[in-house]
């Protein structure tokens, strides 16, 4: 039994083997990009928005409001970053209900990649906001003794992000697979519904934590969690 989609090679592209993680990531990316592109084309201020555009506006404004609530200010770059994390993770998890689809978030490589992205984004946003010296000084506050603990904290954040998401999604998929073999008609459906809820919650948690980490590194951000 294969638990990780990384191990499942679907085909080769120019001699490079493509596993299910990358392929379904591209599927999610294509789905998000095409949907956004179709909905947001021909936007004019004098034309009332249709229901799809209104739905997208509600989603984007909800993400922006959550990030603003966490960061204490409106930050578009943070919206792009954390919002993309949320949408990618949420769509990947929601597509779990489609038979044959393997969510890329069930791959530890994907969650690690996202966690590493957050890990790198935190100093980038911090340096951009505070400057290099200002950001590095946060590692020495309130005392230089805190430096190793701060570094360990940064690393543990990334690891916890990666493991939390991977564990939740992978376990949901594995449990669904196991129950499918044991009781193929009822329990997999219930588990899939539960998986949808869990997937959305995990997407929300991952994005919010990313926003909190990044905003805490910026000038007047929230206190680190």
């Amino acid at each position, binding site marked *: 039994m294969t638990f990780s989609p990384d191990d499942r090679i679907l085909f080769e592209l120019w001699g490079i083997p493509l596993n299910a*993680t990358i392929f379904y990531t591209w599927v999610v*990316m294509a789905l998000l990009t095409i949907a956004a*592109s179709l909905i*947001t084309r021909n936007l004019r*201020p004098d034309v009332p928005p249709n229901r799809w555009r209104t739905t997208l506006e509600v989603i984007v404004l909800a993400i922006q409001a959550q990030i603003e609530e966490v960061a204490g200010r409106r930050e*578009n770059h943070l919206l*792009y970053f954390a919002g*993309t994390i949320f949408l990618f993770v949420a769509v990947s998890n929601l597509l779990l209900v489609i038979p044959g689809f393997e969510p890329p978030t069930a791959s530890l*490589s994907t969650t690690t990649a*996202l966690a590493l992205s957050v890990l790198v984004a935190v100093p980038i946003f911090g340096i951009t906001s505070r400057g290099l010296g200002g950001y590095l000084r946060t590692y020495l506050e309130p005392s230089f003794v805190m430096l190793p603990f701060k570094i360990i904290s940064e690393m543990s954040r990334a690891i916890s992000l990666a493991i939390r998401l991977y564990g939740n999604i992978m376990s949901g998929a594995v449990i669904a697979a196991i129950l499918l073999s044991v009781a193929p008609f009822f329990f997999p459906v219930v588990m899939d519904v539960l998986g949808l809820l869990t997937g959305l919650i995990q997407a929300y948690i991952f994005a919010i934590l990313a926003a909190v980490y990044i905003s805490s590194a910026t000038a007047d951000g929230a206190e680190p969690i």
Partner: protein
Amino acid sequence: MSIDWITVAAQIVNFLVLVWLLKRFLYRPILDGIDRREVEITQRMQEAAHVREQAQAMEQAYRDKVQALDVAQADLTETIRRKAEEQRDALLADARRKLEKEHETWRTHLDDEARKYKARLHRAGAASLLALTGKALDDLADETLEERMARHLAQKLGPMAQDLRRAAAKVSEAVVTSQGPLSQAGRQAVQSELQDVFPDISVRFETDEEQSPGLVLRMGGAEVAWTVETYLEGLASMIDAELVSGRDAPGAER
């Protein structure tokens, strides 16, 4: 549970590409659209407020105009009413004047008619009196009325001699006028009496058909008349005096 670092790197790249794609096709269009719509709504609300202010200003201007028109209409109505009253008063005064004038004309005409009627009555009375008296004198005394009146005038000259002398001090001629030719006896009676009173004066006898029957003696500015008309006038004055006294008397019937 293993990490494929090549997949990790690919997923990092994929994630960054997805960030760029969503920024390009989702966030920017949505946020820019919302911003543009907010600007559009703000502009429209400002335009609506501006239009509302203009409408309110126009409404106020129209209200002022209507009020001014009402005031002007009231003034015009008052002016017209005042002019109408003046014209009415003028027309009434003019009508009153015309009425008074017509009334005066009517009164004049009435007085004239009354005078003419009175004159006709006088003439009829005089003619009747003259005819009756003349017939009575002719039947009873074989004498004409004018001869008798001439003698009567001659008798009246005596008591009036002093007055006549004063009135006709430097007059050399006396004129005696009658309606018809006076008889010889009558002429002699008048002439002899005048000669007695005024010895230096000559007497001339004339006729005047317009004159009432009787005699009129003129000496310069003095005139003594003894005619039927004077008799009737005296009679009428007496009757009027009697009527006035009777009307004013106590116990008279009102």
